[in-house]
């Protein structure tokens, strides 16, 4: 009874709403602008053919516009604009989305191939299955990459026609090989994916190998285009005085002098190295996020176990690639500085330096997330409690290093804070803002993360090696020596001139890398055939760990967007640094806040699209549609509702 009253009430309300809307519309129409009555009267007097002065004026204006349009000669447009967002943001977002998908498409075959190879050597089917699971993500992502690539190309041609034409003038001989390689990549990728289980293992591995070779070659060509925009030439000691001279690949007017110098320009190889490593880290994290997504959706323990393992492997790949990434980034930044002090100072001491504080925060989050995931992973094994006591100390080390890395040299301060400090830098904390402290922090972060991994690896396992005590002590000595050396150089760096201090980064890096290698070499025989206190229970990990994987993927993506902006934005008002000026209305450096907003929106769009990729990839695992089953389900549903 009450329900009927409510329905009746809703009906009455709807009726009244319709009446009110119609009346309101009528009122608004009645009160719209109308020509004055005298004008209507005047028109009636003049008759239909003749126009009142206002109408005549409008007609004259239209005629004049038309005449002007006909008389205007054809001109090549230099720039075109996009309403609301502008040309730069359009190209920026499209380029970033293309790059993110391309990075993923290049990275996944790399580790899918390695996993498949491991499976082939170890003769374990589960690796083969895992590699296939990763490869499933490729097909749709490849289409996305191509779509955004085409979109970006059109955007460049339409919005920056003159500049795009210039790049074509410089790099026209590279376009055909690029297209051919792209075609070959499609061939290898689809034969690798659809040929899974259809070819012999060696033939299939060959396809995977070729896919990687072709993909890397494509990236190297594209890298030449973009690095040319930053460093259009090379540095070479042509007069033999020991000081490198600038050898431009183009003349002062921009005409090509040497395609070889334009292609193999100063920052080309540093970018190649940085991108290969970063792509693997990024690809691993996205694949791990896919596994997390499937884990959270999983209905059975078997599914959970599979995707837990997949997430672990994806994250493992990401972190292994991530460890050397700061060194590759440092090398790239040092090369940019060596190429041009203007770019170097702009990057590390100028406006863009603030973005490195954000970078530090993101990288700190990545390290924290990666360690957290490993700690949670200890719960998969019996006997994990033994190592739990170390987590506190590892966490303290990581948080301290994170804080040091995120400490700005010159803090954002209010007037009273500046007055209290006697300047923009704090008398004590400013020491933490210097390169010595940062290099030390990142090296200790890497060592700590590796330590977490070692603890994870040992959880629930007992070495049966006859010299286990000696070898474990040797590992501890190597680890502490590396840490002590890193800290020593970090502190000593404050007592020497900057040229020497910068060189201290090299022994710091080498001691950490050497420690990682030596400890790994010792660890492999030490834990071969180790006694296990219980089996690893894949799938027995708290769900929060899967959100950590998604968080890591998100941080990687954001980081790539942010650092991509820094590299590209450094050129400031130049399309090609020092050669072709950007004369468009967008030739200014946007505020840091605006730049981070664009990066954030791009990351959100990417995750929306990668969600579609995940969903499409997960469809292949679902049961086939069966009409009978659907009807039965429907009947049951209807029956349920009726009841």
């Amino acid at each position: 009874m009450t329900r009927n009253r409510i329905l009746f009430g809703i009906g009455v309300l709807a009726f009244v709403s319709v009446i009110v809307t119609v009346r309101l519309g009528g009122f608004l129409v009645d009160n719209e602008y109308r020509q004055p009555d005298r004008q209507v009267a005047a028109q009636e007097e003049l008759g239909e053919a003749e126009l009142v002065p206002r109408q005549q004026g409008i007609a004259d204006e239209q005629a004049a516009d038309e005449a002007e349009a006909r008389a205007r000669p054809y001109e090549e447009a230099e720039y075109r604009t996009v309403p609301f967002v502008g040309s730069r943001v359009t190209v920026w977002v499209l380029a970033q989305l293309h790059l993110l998908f391309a990075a993923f498409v290049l990275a996944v075959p790399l580790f899918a191939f390695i996993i498949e190879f491991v499976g082939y050597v170890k003769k374990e089917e589960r690796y083969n299955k895992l590699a296939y699971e990763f490869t499933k993500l490729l097909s749709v992502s490849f289409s996305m990459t191509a779509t955004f690539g085409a979109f970006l190309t059109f955007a460049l041609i339409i919005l920056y026609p003159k500049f795009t034409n210039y790049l074509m003038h410089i790099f026209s001989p590279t376009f055909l090989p690029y297209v051919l390689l792209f075609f070959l990549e499609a061939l290898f990728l689809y034969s690798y994916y659809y040929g899974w289980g259809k070819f012999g293992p060696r033939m299939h591995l060959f396809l995977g190998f070729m896919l990687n070779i072709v993909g890397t070659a494509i990236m190297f060509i594209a890298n030449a285009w973009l690095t040319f925009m930053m460093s259009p030439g090379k540095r070479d000691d042509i007069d033999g005085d020991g000081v490198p001279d600038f050898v431009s690949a183009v003349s002062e007017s921009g005409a090509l002098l040497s395609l070889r110098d334009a292609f193999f320009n100063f920052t080309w190889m540093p970018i190649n190295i940085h991108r290969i490593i970063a792509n693997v880290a990024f690809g691993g994290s996205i694949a791990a996020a896919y596994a997390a997504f499937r884990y959270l959706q999983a209905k059975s323990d078997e599914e959970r176990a599979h995707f837990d393992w997949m997430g672990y492997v994806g994250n493992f790949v990401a972190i292994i690639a991530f460890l050397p990434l700061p060194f590759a980034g440092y090398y790239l930044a040092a090369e940019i500085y060596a190429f041009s002090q203007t770019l170097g100072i702009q990057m590390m001491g100028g406006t863009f330096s603030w973005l490195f504080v954000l970078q530090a925060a993101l990288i700190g989050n990545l390290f924290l997330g990666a360690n957290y995931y490993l700690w949670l992973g200890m719960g998969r094994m019996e006997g994990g409690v033994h190592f739990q006591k170390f987590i506190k100390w590892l966490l303290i080390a990581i948080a301290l290093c994170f804080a040091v890395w995120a400490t700005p040299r010159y803090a954002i301060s209010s007037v009273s804070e500046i007055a209290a400090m006697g300047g923009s830098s704090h008398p004590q904390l400013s020491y933490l803002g210097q390169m010595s402290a940062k290099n030390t922090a990142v090296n200790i972060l890497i060592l700590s993360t590796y330590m977490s991994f070692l603890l994870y690896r040992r959880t629930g396992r007992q070495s049966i090696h006859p010299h286990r005590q000696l070898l474990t002590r040797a590992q501890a000595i190597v680890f502490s020596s590396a840490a002590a050396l890193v800290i020593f150089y970090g502190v000593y760096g404050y007592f020497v001139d900057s040229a020497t201090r910068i060189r201290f980064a090299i022994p710091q890096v080498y001691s950490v890398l050497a420690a990682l290698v030596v400890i790994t070499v010792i660890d492999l025989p030490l834990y071969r055939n180790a006694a296990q206190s219980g089996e690893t229970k894949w799938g027995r990990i708290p769900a929060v760990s899967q959100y950590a994987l998604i968080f890591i993927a998100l941080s990687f993506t954001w980081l790539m967007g942010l650092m991509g902006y820094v590299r590209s934005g450094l050129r400031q008002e130049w399309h090609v640094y020092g050669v072709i000026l950007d004369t468009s209305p967008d030739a200014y450096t946007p505020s840091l806040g605006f730049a981070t907003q664009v990066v954030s929106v791009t990351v959100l769009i990417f995750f929306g699209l990668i969600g579609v990729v995940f969903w499409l990839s997960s469809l292949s695992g679902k049961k086939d549609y069966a009409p009978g089953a659907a009807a039965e389900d429907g009947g049951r549903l209807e029956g349920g509702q009726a009841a």
Partner: protein
Amino acid sequence: MLGLNLPVVIVLAAVGGVLAWRRANTLTWLLYTWVALWAFFKYGFAVPIPQSVATIYLGITGLALVCFASSSRERLSETAQPIVRLILEPRYRLALAGLLVALPALAAYNVYADLNVPLEAPGFGREVHPPPPTEMTVHDETVDMATAENPYLHYNHDDPELYGEHLENGRRIYYENCFWCHGDGMGGDGMFAHGLNPVPSNFNDVGTLPILQSSFVHWRIAKGAPGLPGAGTPWDSMMPAWEKFLTTEEMWDVNLFIYDFNGYEPRALGQH
């Protein structure tokens, strides 16, 4: 000592000691860590650290504590248990009621304290090394900033006598024009320095001259404050544009002198 506010540090350490003695539970330790660090950042330094930096540090601390509390099932339940007991057990009813009042009151006070700050003009940081232009014109001569070097530097090896003459000329120019602000010993502490904000550059600093190419220093001497780039404005520098008072040779000579006086070499092109 070490720029720390010792009484605050001692009190915080003493509270930590009491917690250790009383074998406090995980939740108490987590709360103590966060509050102690907040108090340390706010009151623990003789010169207070800027709010922006304290916020970064406390954010990291918060994240790390959440990670720690949830890093294993056992630790999570250990942390959560006192909260569950507080909510469920009747003997804590009074404490729970107090907490329910205290938490919103604390949030309200925080809002009040945040809004009740004295109004002040925004502070401007100073970019110590603004990026130079790619090229500049000095006395009708175009200088390529990437490749330009001090033309007299090579005399150091090729013709030490001539090098000495240029150095001597640089010394004369420095002590006629520059030392008023940059100081006798080039420490940025000349007799006018106290009246300038930002203070003049300290050429003794290991982080200044050695990381700059001599073209950068030439740019700063020639163009001074009026030639500073648009990015990072407003600039408050009082450095004159010396190209209006000195010849090109004189500017390179003084450039030579300030490097030589401090025992530094200019950063070479292509040097990392």
